[in-house]
């Protein structure tokens, strides 16, 4: 009785998973084995693995995703740590979540305005005597904007793991002779590792397949797996090859998740 009722609650979600997760993934895998003439073939994978263009693209995506994640982490960890010590924490958290409610495209267009030749950043650079620079369509602006968009998804899990730390444990660390830096390295960072892990997961994996920001902010100079998939599906119409890259991306995502998964078995609870 309870089992069946529990199953019926779950069935809607199961249907959702079936139609919108399992079926699309199966379709992509299936499609990746067909060439332009709808013949079954392994040629797409052979092409992918033998082409320096695709391999460089993969490496590129990796490097960009890594840089974006690193920058996001470097900004988010201190910010999250500082947040836990503020008075009106709920308000500050709301202010951090707020930008995520705004459409991604709108934010990207806003940055185009800010970074363009006649934009506010170049106005400022002219004002202090450096003169206008090419900012838009550079690797740096791409990484910066991607990091800006991802920061809330990094701050929140880290913040949550930091507020979970009992202040008495910090006191105990000081009491045993650790100064602030030692307490940070030996207690606070290890104890917030789970938050960092889930933050890295939720930033690194989406960063691998960015394509909108890549186009709008990075111009066509930055080519990643995300932009390659878009190209194959919408421009060259080579769905087989696009699906192959998609499969590669999915495999990379699984590997990333396995690498960043909590190491301790049985999940030690606090």
């Amino acid at each position: 009785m309870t089992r069946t009722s529990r199953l019926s609650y779950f069935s809607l979600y199961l249907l959702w998973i079936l139609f919108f997760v399992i079926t699309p993934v199966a379709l992509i895998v299936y499609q990746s084995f067909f060439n332009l003439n709808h013949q079954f073939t392994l040629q797409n994978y052979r092409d992918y693995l033998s082409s320096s263009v695709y391999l460089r693209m993969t490496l590129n995506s990796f490097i960009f995703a890594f840089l974006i994640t690193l920058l996001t982490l470097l900004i988010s960890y201190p910010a999250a740590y500082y947040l836990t010590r503020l008075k009106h924490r709920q308000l500050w958290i709301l202010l951090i979540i707020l930008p995520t409610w705004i459409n991604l495209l709108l934010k990207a267009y806003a940055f185009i305005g800010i970074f363009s030749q006649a934009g506010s950043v170049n106005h400022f650079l002219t004002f202090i005597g450096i003169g206008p620079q090419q900012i838009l369509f550079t690797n740096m602006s791409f990484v910066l904007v991607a990091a800006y968009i991802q920061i809330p998804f990094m701050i929140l899990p880290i913040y949550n793991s930091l507020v979970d730390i009992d202040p008495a444990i910090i006191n105990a660390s000081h009491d045993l002779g650790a100064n602030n830096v030692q307490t940070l390295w030996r207690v606070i960072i290890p104890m917030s590792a789970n938050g960092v892990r889930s933050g890295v997961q939720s930033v690194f994996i989406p960063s691998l397949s960015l394509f909108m920001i890549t186009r709008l902010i990075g111009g066509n100079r930055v080519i990643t797996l995300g932009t390659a998939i878009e190209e194959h599906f919408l421009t060259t119409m080579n769905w087989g090859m696009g699906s192959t890259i998609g499969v590669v991306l999915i495999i990379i995502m699984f590997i990333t998740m396995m690498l960043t998964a909590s190491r301790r078995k049985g999940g030690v609870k606090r």
Partner: protein
Amino acid sequence: MQSPETILELQHIYKSFDDFVALDNINIKLDQGKFYSFLGPSGSGKTTVLRIVAGLILADRGKVLFDGQDISKLPAEKRKVNTVFQNYALFPHLNVFDNVAFGLRLKRMPQDELQERVMQALKTIQLNGYEDRMISELSGGQQQRVAIARAIVNEPRLLLLDESLSALDQKLRQQMQYELRSLQQRLGITFLFVTHDQEEALAMSDEIIVMNEGRIQQSGTPVDIYDEPINHFVANFIGESNIVPGTMIRDYEVEFVGKRFECADAGMRDHEPVEVVLRPEDITVTTPNQGKLVVSVDSQLFRGDHFEITSHDEDGNEWLIHATNSIEDRDKVGLSFSPNALHVMRFGEKEADFDRRLSEYEGDES
């Protein structure tokens, strides 16, 4: 006999949190190698004292002297004091060994010496063989022991214990009381124990410091404090007692509930208004003729090792009695007590004056 060395001295310590005065002029000296308990209800300031000694918070005014040196402004990590925290505050990401080794690693102690010291500490608290366990795999009592080992492995000269037994169940708590006491005597470290549990303080301490409303009410040995409380608060907080208003007629004679009784106190003004303390276990039940007071019984509760009897006399004063047997005839019962059982308290007497008066008239007797 050599006078023991002072390890810690607090001079005129004041501390406020916003409008709340947590500590109001605390002065105390702790001797090396003794077991001290700060005892008081919640909000009395006892934990604030501990945190100021540990360096986790700083006093607004006053001095903390450790071994004669002013450490008032020294941060916690530089003080040679270790703490056993209320909920143990063990590091959940480290196993038992690494928890205990935490302080020694910070001192960059060589590996083999560190290994030996940690093992020794675990042996002291009877947890050898548990090195590789995670904290979450331990019971409350075991966590308590690890917290103690983590503190004593650093060989502090003063160990602070913050309500350290209050999270344990009754049986385990009593066992830990014995263990703490014997550990303290074995190590010869000064213990400063903070508790709201008067039985715990009475059982373990060399000296008890009773606190209320940010002030030290009285300090002394458990027997002194129990037998000769300085005021209404201490008499009420330590053990159970009957406290009645009275008048000191002259030395060694006090009047209450309209009768005059012989007592053991002196050194007050004649006809001074006072309060009289009579402990329930010092009252003996007898026949109405032989009793100094005659009461009728309201209720009797069996408490295992004694009966707790509430009663009232003709004037409506309530009397609490602890007796080994229950009372059969409940209407008229005589209560008897020796002059020594009566303890007379003056209103608003300072601790120094109280001690001086006590030593004066006790000197008379001998």
